[in-house]
């Protein structure tokens, strides 16, 4: 992100203290409004004149949007304006929660640097709508529910339905992303996140994976989600289904990852920073290495 401009375009600024107030402003200004959470994306977009909102609505002071809360059986709820570093700190002080949502933790704790993580928010990360946003693959992995509100009411969606492609969200001008709910993952599951950042600040291929009960063919579960290599995040269910076949998990891995490759091949991004061929192969390579890491993490727990 870069800009020849050193100043921001002129705009009005509002800092509502309740969700209701924020939604009213959004209803009033619609497309002329932009929501400010951490500002990591918005300010740079404004510097570049990619957006020039008439009004900037700052949601940082709405307590409800800063929520970070885990409830046994219900799962983890993150307010859209919860900061990345607040979330990882919460997880560090609740190691059980951290291990449950390990893939999310690994992704969030490696976003940019600490100064950025102190500003950036989970909602901002989601709404930036660029392929390499680090929260995407883990949120797809954990079947996250995104709660969207407007003055007209509320609705619920998933990350893969919400993020349509670069710059495209399923979000009406009067709507606001309010919270993200991650249901409890399968019992005794392990998850992890892996990305390739070759000489740029952003990933060109990200994989999140979850494995539960790997040695029991009846109860085992494998989930795979990818992002960065594709315009929008993908939960690769075609690959996950392969693990429902008969046989040992390790005997199905090659077939599952081949299935992943064929399922997403046509969608992979090609640009000056990484070829489609490399991105696709990196998804596969990382999936193998991640799978090994997850198996080993079951072992370590026992050893």
């Amino acid at each position, binding site marked *: 992100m870069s800009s020849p401009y050193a100043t921001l375009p002129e705009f009005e600024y509002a800092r509502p203290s309740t969700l209701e107030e924020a939604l009213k402003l959004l209803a009033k200004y619609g497309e002329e409004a932009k929501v400010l959470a951490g500002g990591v994306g918005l300010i740079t977009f404004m510097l570049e004149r990619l957006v020039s909102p008439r009004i900037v609505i700052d949601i940082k002071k709405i307590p409800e949007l800063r929520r970070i809360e885990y409830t046994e059986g219900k799962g983890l709820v993150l307010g859209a304006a919860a900061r990345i570093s607040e979330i990882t700190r919460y997880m560090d002080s609740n190691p059980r929660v951290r291990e449950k949502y390990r893939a999310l933790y690994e992704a969030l704790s490696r976003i940019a640097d600490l100064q950025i993580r102190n500003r950036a928010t989970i909602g901002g990360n989601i709404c930036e709508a660029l392929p390499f946003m680090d929260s995407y693959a883990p949120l797809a992995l954990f079947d996250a529910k995104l709660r969207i509100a407007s003055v007209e009411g509320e609705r619920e969606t998933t990350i893969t339905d919400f993020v349509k492609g670069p710059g495209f969200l399923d979000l009406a001008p009067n709507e606001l992303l309010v919270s993200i709910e991650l249901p409890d993952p399968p019992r005794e599951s392990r998850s992890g996140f892996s990305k390739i950042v070759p000489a740029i600040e952003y990933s060109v291929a990200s994989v999140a994976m979850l494995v539960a009960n790997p040695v029991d063919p009846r109860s085992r579960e494998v989930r795979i989600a990818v992002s960065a290599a594709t315009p929008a995040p993908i939960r690769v269910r075609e690959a996950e289904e392969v693990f429902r076949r008969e046989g040992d998990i*390790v005997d199905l891995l090659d077939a599952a990852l081949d299935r992943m490759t064929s399922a997403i091949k046509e969608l992979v991004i090609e640009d000056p920073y990484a070829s489609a061929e490399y991105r696709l192969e990196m998804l596969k*390579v990382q999936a193998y290495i991640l799978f090994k890491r997850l*198996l*080993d993490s079951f*072992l370590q727990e026992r050893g």
Partner: protein
Amino acid sequence: MGGAVVREYRYIGKRIPPRDAFDKVTGIAPYVYDMELPGMLYVKLLQSTQPHARIKGIDYSKALSVSGVVAVATGRDFPFRIGIYVGDRDLLAIEKALWVGHPVAAVIAESPRAAEKALDLIEVDYEPLQPVFDPIEAMKPGAPLLHPDLGKYRISPAFKPRPGTNIANEFRLSKGDVDKGFSKASVVVEGEFSIPFMSHVYMETQAVIAHYKPNGYVDIWSSAQSPFSARYLLAMSLGMPVGRIRIHVPYVGGGFGGKAGLGWEPLAVMLSKKAGYRPVKLLFTRSEQMRLAPVVAGVKAWGKLGLDKEGRIVAYQARFIFDSGAFGDYTVNVSRTAGYACTGSYEVDNVECLSYAVYTNKIPTTALRGFGYPENHWVLERLIDMAAKKLGMDPAKVRSINLLKPGKSKTSTGARLREDAGDPQRVLEEVIGSLGWGREPSSTDKPWKIRAKGFALSVKGPSQPPDASSSAIIKFNEDGSVDVMVGTGNFGQGTVTSLAMIVAEEFGIPLDKVHVHEMRSTNDSAYTWQTVGSRGLFTDGSALLEAIKDAKSKIKRVASAVLRVSEDHLEIGDGKVYVKGKPWHYIPLERIVMGYLYENGNAIGGPIIGAGRHIAELNTFLDPETGQGTPTIFYTFGGTGVEVEVNVLTGEIKVVKAVQVFDIGKAINPLLVEGQMIGGFVMGQSRALYEELIFDEMGSVANPNLSFYYVARAKDMPDEWVLKIIETPQSDGPYGARGIGENVMIAVAPAIGNALYHGLSVDVRSLPLKAERVWRAIREQNPKLYKEALEAVKRSIRESYKKLREALVVAR
């Protein structure tokens, strides 16, 4: 060395923290970027959207109507060209826009906001012309010409542009007979190599404030490396008397060559005049910095090396095509230097090296730390390893056989290397010893990660005119403290700390009684040609020693009268002037340096000022046909070794161990020298592995930001450092010292390239060694390695699974 007296030093050779550290850490260090003057205006430049186009008209009437806008300037206001060596630069595009980003108009306004608002309202009518982006295409007859008037430009004598083409400079080094040489070769290796455009990425982007005053004087505050040379070139460019221009330079947030010579001062000065003699400030955002301020040239190179059966280099041929972008600026001299120093640390009798700087419709380029040496080393130091492998000989042995021998060998330019130039042989031995060259690299616990070792040697001397000179002035204060006035810049190297140590050492006074102001001003700092080429400590340090000697003799003259002994019998040290052998007969310096007062009120002497100077000795111009002559005042020899860990499956490279060895004659301050060794390595690593400006189909920089243009971070640093300083003193350097600032990064890329070559049998000749490039090379050149690594991962998955199942059975 029987009988040699080893002098005990109080400061020299001690690890003393840099003087600027406090200012920088606390944030009190002044930079032009932060400076504001009363009544100051702000400038914003409109960038061309066309890579090559005739400017038919510029309509800025709407811009002028924006509140706060004072004036708008276009190329028509400044119909002349400037430039350090080839006068090809315009201040704002004259008639033609030459790259996407070329400033075509400047808005001057009361606030940055007004300037930016007005910028969006300027309309430019372009008539697109055929652009040329590839330097090899640009050299061909019939290619679109960027500078049809090249033959009419002002050209500095050492340079040879070819009018009617896009060749901004052509240089040829010729020695011996390469055909005859190659006919004696047992092995010949050749190859094409490339280096991309890069940005200097100094932390402080370019910033200049200029005030053209109604009385005809011009005051400039500039983030410049070389205020004096900027002043001279500015005076030449604008036809002004040199003495009427005063350039003031506070701390500079990094330069790396990118702020040498002449920068944006001429434009700022002319805009100040245009704005009614008010001060104007021009500064760049990072994006502007990477789209319109000069960057670093890309290079396409070819080299051919022949060894006889003993491993002796019998011939070397190379060609370097520097993609200069739209202006030649410093790149004409960088390419010339790459050519004349093409044989590196080795003695080669038969050489032919050609180098070109070529115009293309891309961002202009300028000098970068290393100045042609990183470019020529990337070719030669790789070819040596290839040739050695082909011959079945250790590349260390091949290097050892061919190294320049001080006092005996002749360099590429035919100049005999001075006897005390250093000990290249010992450098080589220390590099391979510290690296453990010849011993297998350690293995990793991940079967898809392979460790590999490589090394390369490097040499570097300043590329400067034969009459480049420096001076220094010291003056005493009432308390016996000393003000030091030098011209050498203050942008991170630490030279100022070393200069202060020299003064403290010579007078035996505490270091905190030596003051070196951070501001350089052409009207009250001592002259130095430029702060470039690793020359600062060598040249300005030498001038300072002469100034100290001058001051000492003035002090002794007064003391001689007071103490009633001859001047020859006086010594200065410990902050006193005293009688040799009877140190209890002394005068404290503070009682004599402002004049000595007798008890009855008589006084003699007066304030003490010392002046000194330095000029290159016995340097020559290079022969225009053969490139032969003596171009440098010293060569510093060095070498770099690396152990890298390569992820075979992803192509990612991690440097686990870095070895840096340099013979710098004398480390005035080893702490600062090590800082250069570490910083230079990381910069070299960054250029070797990550940095690359990417151009789109319009020749426009697609990644003018630090998100998509990646620079090494703290996390990328090597795990282990071996830093070795060798001290073979050079008799005409201060305390024997030679320069170190640039050489520290030159051998890093070839060392890493050689590591891939030896450890993975993969030969990558294009920089940067980005993950995908390395991954692709492994898949194409050593597919077995890739396959085995993937198999190893799968095998280890099965092993883990087996263990997990067993563990579960036991648990049950």
